[in-house]
């Protein structure tokens, strides 16, 4: 896993300390809040939609929202776990 540590992590959120990326940080915050607001609106909209779903679970309030969020979280976390198993140095096959 040495390559893992040497590799450049790019998922690090923008550094809040430096002025250069301060607007980037506030942008990122704005995106999070804006997205959350849209999501909340969509869940509310769910109340006014008549559903024709074939499966019972579809009729649960906010099912698609919940399912989308859960599926992604689970898959991301699963990927993070599996990464430890699958990841090899870049020149793995060339050795």
């Amino acid at each position, binding site marked *: 896993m040495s390559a893992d540590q040497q590799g450049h992590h*790019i998922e690090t959120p923008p550094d809040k300390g430096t002025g250069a990326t301060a607007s980037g940080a506030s942008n990122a915050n704005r995106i*999070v809040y804006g*997205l959350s607001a849209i999501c909340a609106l969509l869940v509310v909209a769910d109340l006014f939609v008549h559903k024709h779903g*074939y499966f019972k679970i579809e009729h649960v309030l906010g099912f698609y929202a*919940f399912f989308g969020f859960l599926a992604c979280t689970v898959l991301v976390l699963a*990927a993070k776990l599996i*990464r430890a198993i699958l990841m090899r140095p870049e020149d793995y096959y060339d050795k």
Partner: protein
Amino acid sequence: MTNELNPGLIVILGALLVPFLPGRVLRGAFMLMIPIAAFAYLRTLPMGDFGQMELMGLQLQTLRIDKLSTVFGTIFLIATLLGVIYALHLGDWVQHTAGLIYAGSAIGAVFAGDFVTLFFFWELTAISSVFLIWASGTANALSAGLRYLVIQVGSGVILLAGVLMHYRATGTLTFGAMSTETLPGTLILIAFGIKCAFPLLHNWLANAYPAATVTGTVILSVFTTKLAVYTLARGYAGTEILIPIGVTMALFTVIYALLENDLRRVLAYSLIGQLGLMVAGIGIGSDLAINGAVAHAACGILYFALLFMAIGAVLHRTGTAHASKLGGLAKSMPLTATFAVIGALAAAAVPFFAGFISKALILSAAMKAGHFWAWAGLLAAGAAVVIHTAIKVPYFAFFAKAQGEPGTEAPANMLLAMGLTAALCIGLGVYPEALYSMLPREVKYQPYTTEHIITQLQLVCFAALAFVLALRFGLFPATTRATLLDSDWFYRVPGRHLAMIANRFRSFTWEVVADGIVKGASKTYHALYHHHGPDGLFGRTWPTGMMAFWTTVTLGAVVILSYL
């Protein structure tokens, strides 16, 4: 021999003329004419079976025009045109010719009415397309191309074996609905499955596409797998086994697409995932599902081509497609970034974009047929697409903190190709009837209901929220330069690892077996070289006496055998 020419042959014949045309302008104009001419010709053909010919005593049907083949042929021709525009800036006639022959053979395969014609074009796609990989000229491309070629040709060989046995058993070569109950049917399914990147058979795709040239990847992403989808839709509609296969494809690729650093590899895995959706649709087999698979193939071609084009433009300008070396390109390549976002929205199946109108068909079909787990799996994979394709790819390339040099805007022809593709992505999303009217089965479907729009938006937005939060809290897996193990591991590192396993289990009883396999594998090569190399028994020059001796032995053996 034939009264009617397969439209694919027009493209291939045109491609053969390309190297002989002087000047880039003339050549470019001619290449643009090829798909247009083929399309115009296709429009004049009525529905039906044509091009009957007899070859080696076999009745062939080289041209079959029905709704299924027409929709694939049409979208292939459109993609060919877009690909040609995208590649116009190249001066490399090898890539131009190979790409057009490849496109032409895929189109020819779609219109093939019998297995022999199909097999011919099937192998031609393999052989012509490998040049698009080799053309990038790196050592990695060379070996990836060779592996690609072996697997693709191998698929053709299996197809041929299946076809021969099928012909033997039924006496017909017509390519129609097949059954998996019989051995030939299974063999042919495996052959199709290799090209369709079934799980464990998929890694040729993930290895070869990112290794190809900038323009080559765009062309590659269009044809091989979608041709396989066509053959599955034609031959194996309603084959139940395809449902779990498709769902597996859709789900396991999510992991790889999330982890990969090379954005073209991300797209390659994502492409396999979308193929899974189509395969599952074909497995469900209802009219709605088949329509969905076909429609999704058409939309997938467009938005994956668009994404590959955008990332290709990035690679063209910055020299890399690795997420860890990119970022912030939205400022320097604003148009490319816009088109990439449109492709991403289409991939995420956001309403009024191409992916929306086709994915809905398959999910509705799964629902109506009562395949709950398949539906849930595909829905989850669809949510994950939002993260790993629709957000991750444009984000790391264009919007994340810049990690490398800023590029310059893509060449005009690339922008034109991307613009046209993006327009098609939006056009189909806004006006789905254009696509629906071409679909093979007669079903009415209305994608734009309030319910559907709202639920899909919920799915997309919450997936996006999950991504943003994961990124925020450092939960998103790091995308570093690394190799991800995949099923190609099984053939790329067998000797070394088997040796390790054998060492570990030396005390066990099967030690002998494992040891034997390991030693056998490593020894086979050496033994072959020992006996057949230039100094080996079968490779070196024998003394005259030894030649005479073996002649005598043969004579003796023949005579003795005669008297036995």
